[in-house]
């Protein structure tokens, strides 16, 4: 499934790297612990988290993730968005909680 399809179905707000929406998502990983994501997320997974600080961009880039969905209506600072744009990482936001986002994606990827 393409990231763009996910954006449409979940009505995600695309904050950065619009060109990245053509990427094919392999799976998803839900975690707010960065070293857990480094250990267990897969390449081209979409990462669901409530973390919003700068280091999430480096984690996504190091792991080759498909993008980051920031849940729960958390505001993302401009410097984080700027960094994500530079590193070509798609940041998507939603007011929905992680459980709902993960549940919907699970159904879609199954």
């Amino acid at each position, binding site marked *: 499934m393409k990231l763009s399809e996910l954006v449409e179905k979940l009505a995600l707000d695309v904050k950065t790297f619009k060109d990245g929406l053509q990427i094919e998502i392999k799976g998803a990983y839900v975690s707010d612990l960065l070293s*857990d994501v480094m250990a267990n997320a897969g390449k081209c997974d979409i990462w669901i988290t409530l973390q919003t*600080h700068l*280091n999430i961009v480096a984690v996504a880039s190091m792991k080759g993730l498909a993008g980051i969905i920031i849940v729960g209506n958390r505001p993302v600072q401009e410097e984080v968005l700027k960094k994500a744009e530079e590193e070509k990482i798609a940041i998507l936001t939603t007011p929905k909680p992680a459980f709902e986002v993960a549940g919907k994606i699970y159904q879609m990827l199954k």
Partner: protein
Amino acid sequence: MALNISGAIEGSFQLIGGNFATAGEASTQLKLKLTNLGVHEDIIRRAAIATFEAEMNVIIYAAAGRLHYYITQQSIKIRVEDMGPGIEDISLAMQEGYSTAPEWVREMGWGAGMGLPNMKKNSDKFSIDSVVGEGTTVEMVINFS
């Protein structure tokens, strides 16, 4: 696959404790270098993860440090030395889930106690040496084949 380079390529990056804003820069640079050398992407990812975790530990726990890399045809060796508090019980620190990260660092999502195990898992050779009150040195080798 062995790389088509003669001799070795080496260099280093300075790391500054508490500098979360530039965390990952050394790993990103190294990743770029390996990409340009034509290293396989799975190997690059392992090197990037191991380097980033090592970099983060210096930023979280130490005052300053240096990351040194040494690339040959066969492998990349990464040595990260810091001037920090050192580690009293290394085997405890190596246990998954053990962390002394302060609350504000945990709020950022670090402090799962998985960094050192991640470094070890992603390296072909891993060693750690530490002197309390002086600092810590981590050495990792990742083979290209």
